[in-house]
């Protein structure tokens, strides 16, 4: 089951440049939440703050409170490594490990956790590949083919399987379909729809139709600030803020 995320007064910097200003947000469990906004408004920075990937950039830092279940991920004594094991992430560009087989790609996270039980590994790999709707396409050459030998869309679903294999509470996706063709994109969208049953999904997208299709909630960011956060329907039909309306209607951005 997914868990909710409560973001309180989150600020983030790249060196001296502040990329996020006091974000407050309540992300519901087992729903998909879309993050939209013009390029450079801080969407990626925001999701990367939710699993402490942001601070892996040189000179980057973040402050604030992000409560995931019973843990404030920015709390004292919380290790970023533990946070990332509980909050999975899928990137814009598919990034499977090219030197590993499909199987080893999916098992990579578990093996990092010291998981060695072969039978259990087999089960989890199959389950993850099934949940990412890739199983039928790769089941015959799991260990023969390298992760890089798949098509772009398959690679992205492999990356989703890899993230799911460690059974995270939350799945973060940063424009997961923007590098893909329309058919692969719709597969990924269907997948997000199914994943919501078991995970909390946060998805960054440039494509407003996509946000409308997959997400119940949508947050609009502008210049590092959260402008409006509401039901997707409301954002796209009757937004409260003028700037949201301008963006939705394509008047800028």
């Amino acid at each position: 089951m997914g868990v909710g995320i409560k973001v309180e007064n989150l600020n983030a910097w790249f060196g001296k440049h502040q990329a996020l200003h006091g974000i407050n947000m309540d992300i519901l469990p087992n729903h998909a939440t879309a993050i939209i906004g013009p390029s450079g408004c801080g969407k990626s920075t925001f999701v990367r703050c939710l699993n402490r990937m942001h601070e892996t950039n040189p000179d980057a830092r973040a402050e604030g409170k992000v409560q995931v279940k019973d843990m404030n991920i920015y709390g004292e004594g919380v290790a970023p490594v533990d946070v990332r094991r509980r909050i999975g992430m899928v990137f814009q560009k598919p990034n499977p490990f090219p030197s590993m087989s499909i199987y080893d790609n999916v098992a990579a996270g578990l093996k990092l956790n010291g998981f060695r039980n072969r039978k259990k590994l087999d089960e989890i790999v199959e389950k993850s590949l099934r949940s990412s709707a890739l199983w039928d396409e790769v089941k015959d050459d799991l260990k023969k083919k390298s992760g890089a030998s798949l098509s772009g869309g398959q690679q992205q679903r492999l990356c989703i399987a890899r993230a799911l294999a460690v059974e995270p509470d939350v799945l973060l996706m940063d424009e997961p379909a923007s590098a893909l063709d329309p058919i692969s994109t719709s597969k990924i969208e269907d997948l997000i729809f199914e994943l919501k049953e078991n995970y909390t999904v946060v998805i960054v997208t440039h494509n407003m139709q996509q946000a409308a299709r997959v997400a119940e909630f949508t947050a609009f960011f502008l210049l590092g600030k959260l402008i409006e956060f509401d039901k997707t329907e409301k954002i796209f039909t009757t937004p409260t803020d003028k700037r949201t309306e301008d963006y939705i209607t394509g008047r800028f951005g």
Partner: protein
Amino acid sequence: MSVAQPQQPMGSALNPVGEHLRVVPRRSSVVSRFADFSFQGLVWLSAACVLAIVAFILMQLIKGSSLSLHQFGWKFFTGSDWDPVNGNFGSVPFVYGTLVSSLVALVIAVPLSLGVAIFITEMCPRSLRGILSYLTELLAAIPSVIYGMWAIFVLIPLLRRYIGPALAKTFGWTGLFTGPIYGGGMLTAGIILAIMLVPIISSITREVLTAVPHQQREAALALGATRWEMIRVGVLRNARAGIFGAIILGLGRALGETMAVTMVIGNRPKITKSLFAPAYTMASVIANEFSEATDDLYLSSLIEIGLALFIVTIIVNILAQFLIWSVTRGTPRRANV
């Protein structure tokens, strides 16, 4: 002699008004085509020259060693007797010396170089990165005779007094560290070679590691990898072939290194298990005995050793370049981290 005329475009006489406004004179297509052609020719010529030189050296080596090739055949590479007085030449002690000293060098240099490369690309603060890589590369610029001198004045006394006895005490049971410690010998040659290899192996490894896409590191981190796990899974694994290439390239260098090795290895054509014992390498025997090889068969045998060394190092280098290229080709440099 004619006075040099300013180059005029062909069309200017026909259309003086229009051409007046043109600031950059248009080159005639004949001229530019000729320039293009001759440049291309020059490039091809230089490339052909390199190949020709290699072929020429190979031919000369084969010609020079024909006497010994005929006289000994394969026995040259199975016999271990090197006896110029009686005209008996077998190259095994030199091949052994070259291989073992290079192997010792790699055993020491590889972990050290990988450590240096990993530290520079993945761990050290960015401000230190440039200066550190510069310093390691500077090591490669030191002439090998200087390394040899340093070994004689510093390394050999150290080995004889401290390192040697310590090794004999702890690892004597392996049989690799027994017998009298002269200071000079296989181990000394291996160590000095190792120091010379570190800049080569580490700088190429550094390049290979830098070529690994940043997304691979992020993929590992996002799975909850620690920094070391990230390096192992996201970086080293992807760079395997290239790192192997760097090592092979270092091996090629070690096989052919002459001066420093000749100064410290002891120059005795005997196969001994103990690394403390003096030995001899293919390159050193050529350097040492070439000027005193007065009879034809002696000279021819030395040239045959040169031929073998040449072929082996060429093959090793081609293999290395291929492996390095297989990793670095086409991979974009990452922007930061």
